[in-house]
C-alpha cells in the first residue's frame, strides 16, 4: 500500500517529478558515460603502452633499464626460453629482441633512433610492428639489408620507400659500427612519437652488426588477456618466472613495474571516479532535497490527517522514504538505460580524436577512444546516487514526520 501511495504521489505533480528525473538522468548519465569514456581512454593508453614493445612481461638484465646498452644483454636466450615456456599460460606469445640506441643517417642529416632487432613472424599479435605495414612491405627473413621505419620518421627525413639510409650504433667494445639499409616499408602506430623513434631490422642482422652472437636484450611475453585492468594472476606468474630463472641473473617484470606512472594512475583512478561521482551528486542532491521539501510542505495537511487517524510519525517518515526510494530507483533505471544506449550505440564504435591527435598524443592516448563500461563505475555511480539520495532524502522525510496534526490541520 505504501508503494502504491508513493507511486501515485510521484505522479501527482508530474512536472516536478520529471524535473527531478531529468536531473538524475543528466547526473547519472554524465557519471556513467564520461567514466566509460575515460576508462576507454585509459585502456587505450595501457594497450598502447603494452603494444609499444613493452608486453605484459619482460625478461632482461636488471641493469638494462638504467643503462640500455648492448652490454646488458641476455647472452643465451635459448636456455631462458626453454625454462620459462612451460610456465606460461596457453596463448602466450614470446618475442626476442635487441633494442639499442643509435643514429639513422641520410645524406642530409642524422636522427637519434632506437634500433630494434626482431624476428618478424614472432611479433604478430605482440606489438604494433606485427601489424600490416603502412607503405611498402614487411622485411622477409632473408632480406638482411632492409629495414622498416615509422611513417612519421619517413616524412620527417623526407625519404621514400626504397631509399637507403645508414644505421650507426655501438658494439660491446664501445666502437661505432654502421651499416646501410634500404627502407622496405613504413609502419603506423597510435602515437606519432613512436613512429619517429623505432626502426626495425632483422634480429640476426643486428646481432651480427653488434657482434653479440645469439644475444638479445629482452624477451617479451604477451599474454592473451586483452584489457589492461584484468591482469589477475599476472603478479603470481611473474614471481613464478623469477623463481625459475633466479640463477640466471636476469629478472622478469610485469608491465605495471615497467610503467610505474600509468600503474599508479590506474590505482588512484577509482578514487578519482568516486570523488567525481560525489561532486556530481552534490549538485543533483540539492535538487532532490529541494523538490522533495516542496512536495512535503504541499502535503502538510495530508500528513496531519494521517497522523490524526492514527499513523505514527515514524510511519510517515517511512512513507516519504519509500517515495524517495521509488523516485531514485526509477530515475536510475531510466538513466542507466540512456547511458547504455549512448555507450553501446552512439559512441559504440569509438570517438575519433585524430583531428586533435597532436594534442592528445603527449598523454599516450589513442587516436580513437572506445568507451569501456566498467561494472565498478556503473555500480559505484548508482550506489552513490541511491545511498546519498536516501541519506539526503531523510531530511524532507523527517520534516514530514514532525508536522503535528494540529498545526498541519490548521494549515490550508
Amino acid at each position, binding site marked *: *500500500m505504501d508503494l502504491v*501511495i508513493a507511486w501515485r504521489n510521484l505522479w501527482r505533480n508530474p512536472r516536478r517529478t520529471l524535473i527531478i528525473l531529468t536531473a538524475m538522468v543528466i547526473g547519472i548519465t554524465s557519471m556513467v558515460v564520461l567514466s566509460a569514456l575515460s576508462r576507454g581512454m585509459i585502456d587505450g593508453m595501457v594497450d598502447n603502452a603494452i603494444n609499444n614493445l613493452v608486453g605484459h612481461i619482460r625478461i632482461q638484465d636488471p641493469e638494462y633499464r638504467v643503462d640500455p646498452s648492448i652490454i646488458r644483454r641476455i647472452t643465451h636466450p635459448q636456455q631462458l626460453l626453454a625454462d620459462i615456456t612451460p610456465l606460461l599460460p596457453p596463448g602466450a606469445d614470446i618475442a626476442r629482441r635487441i633494442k639499442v640506441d643509435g643514429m639513422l643517417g641520410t645524406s642530409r642529416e642524422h636522427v637519434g633512433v632506437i634500433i630494434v632487432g626482431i624476428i618478424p613472424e614472432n611479433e604478430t599479435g605482440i606489438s604494433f610492428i606485427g601489424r600490416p605495414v603502412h607503405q611498402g612491405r614487411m622485411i622477409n627473413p632473408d632480406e638482411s639489408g632492409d629495414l622498416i621505419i615509422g611513417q612519421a620518421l619517413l616524412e620527417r627525413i623526407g625519404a621514400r620507400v626504397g631509399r637507403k639510409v645508414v644505421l650507426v650504433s655501438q658494439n660491446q667494445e664501445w666502437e661505432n659500427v654502421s651499416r646501410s639499409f634500404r627502407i622496405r616499408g613504413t609502419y603506423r602506430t597510435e602515437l606519432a612519437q613512436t613512429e619517429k623513434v623505432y626502426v626495425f631490422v632483422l634480429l640476426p642482422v643486428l646481432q651480427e652488426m653488434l657482434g653479440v652472437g645469439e644475444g638479445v636484450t629482452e624477451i617479451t611475453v604477451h599474454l592473451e588477456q586483452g584489457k589492461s585492468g584484468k591482469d589477475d594472476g599476472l603478479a603470481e606468474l611473474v614471481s613464478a618466472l623469477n623463481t625459475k630463472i633466479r640463477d640466471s641473473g636476469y629478472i622478469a617484470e610485469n608491465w605495471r613495474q615497467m610503467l610505474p606512472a600509468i600503474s599508479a594512475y590506474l590505482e588512484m583512478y577509482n578514487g578519482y571516479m568516486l570523488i567525481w561521482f560525489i561532486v556530481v551528486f552534490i549538485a543533483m542532491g540539492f535538487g532532490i532535497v529541494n523538490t522533495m521539501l516542496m512536495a512535503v510542505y504541499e502535503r502538510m495537511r495530508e500528513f496531519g490527517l*494521517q497522523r*490524526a*487517524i492514527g*499513523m505514527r510519525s515514524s510511519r510517515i517518515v517511512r512513507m516519504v522514504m519509500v517515495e524517495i526510494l521509488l523516485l531514485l530507483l526509477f530515475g536510475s533505471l531510466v538513466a542507466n538505460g540512456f547511458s547504455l544506449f549512448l555507450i553501446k550505440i552512439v559512441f559504440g564504435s569509438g570517438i575519433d580524436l585524430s583531428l586533435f591527435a597532436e594534442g592528445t598524443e603527449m598523454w599516450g592516448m589513442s587516436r580513437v577512444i572506445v568507451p569501456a563500461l566498467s561494472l565498478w563505475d556503473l555500480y559505484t555511480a548508482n550506489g552513490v546516487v541511491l545511498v546519498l539520495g536516501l541519506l539526503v532524502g531523510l531530511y524532507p522525510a523527517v520534516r514530514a514526520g514532525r508536522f503535528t*496534526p494540529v498545526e498541519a*490541520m490548521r494549515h490550508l
Partner: protein
Amino acid sequence: MSIVEVEEVSKIYHQGKMTFKALDDVSLAVDKGEFIALAGPSGSGKTTLLNLVGGLDLPDSGKVVLDGNDYSKMGDGQRADLRLERLGFVFQSYNLIPVLTAAENVEYILRLQNVEKAERIERVQSILDEVGLQEKHNSRPDELSGGQQQRVAVARAIVSNPAVVLADEPTANLDSKTGEKLLEMMRVMNEKRQVTFIFATHDKMVMDFARRIVSLHDGKVAGDQKKDE
C-alpha cells in the same frame, strides 16, 4: 464509567509574545453512546477541546482520559495507536487522501490496524454501501461531491469500530439538505453500533440532531443541556 473524561482542563496558545487562553478550566464527562454537540461562537474553543479529546494536542493543565487511558501519561506514538484503535475523525474538509479511491481511503485505516485482506474488503464494501456510495467505490476524492466526500470520511471513521467519533464541523461545507442526510446517517450509526459521537459545530441543524448540547463561551463551559426523549 464515562468514555471521555475531561477534568479541569486549560489550554493556552502562544503567539509570539502574546498568550491566549483558549480553554479555561473545562470539565466534561461523556458516556458511551452519547450523541453530543459542542456549540458556541467562533473562537470559543470547540476545536481546541475536540483536539484535546482526540489526543492530537495536550492541555496545559488538567487531564483528559479516553476509555481509561490518560493522555498525559502516554507518548506521542502511544496516543497515535490509541487514536487508531479507539477513535474516528471527521473534519470539515480535506478528509481524504487524494491519491486513494473512496474504497482505498476507507480500507487504509484497516490496513493500519492489520486487518486481514478478506475481512477488509468485506467491511469496506458494506460500510460504503451503508453510507450510500455503492456506485463510487473506485472514485478518487476529486471525482466526488463535497457531501460524498464527507460520507467517505464518516465511513472511514466508523469502519474501524471506534469507541468515539470526533467530528469538527462536518456539515459546514454542505448545503442543508446534504448536511441533514449526513447527520441522519451518523445518527443511525450511533444507534445501531452504540458509537459515541462528539460534534463541534455552530450549525443549528446539528444541535437539533444532538441529544446533548454543551455550550462553550470564551473557553468556558456556559451550559450543558440534555434533551430527554
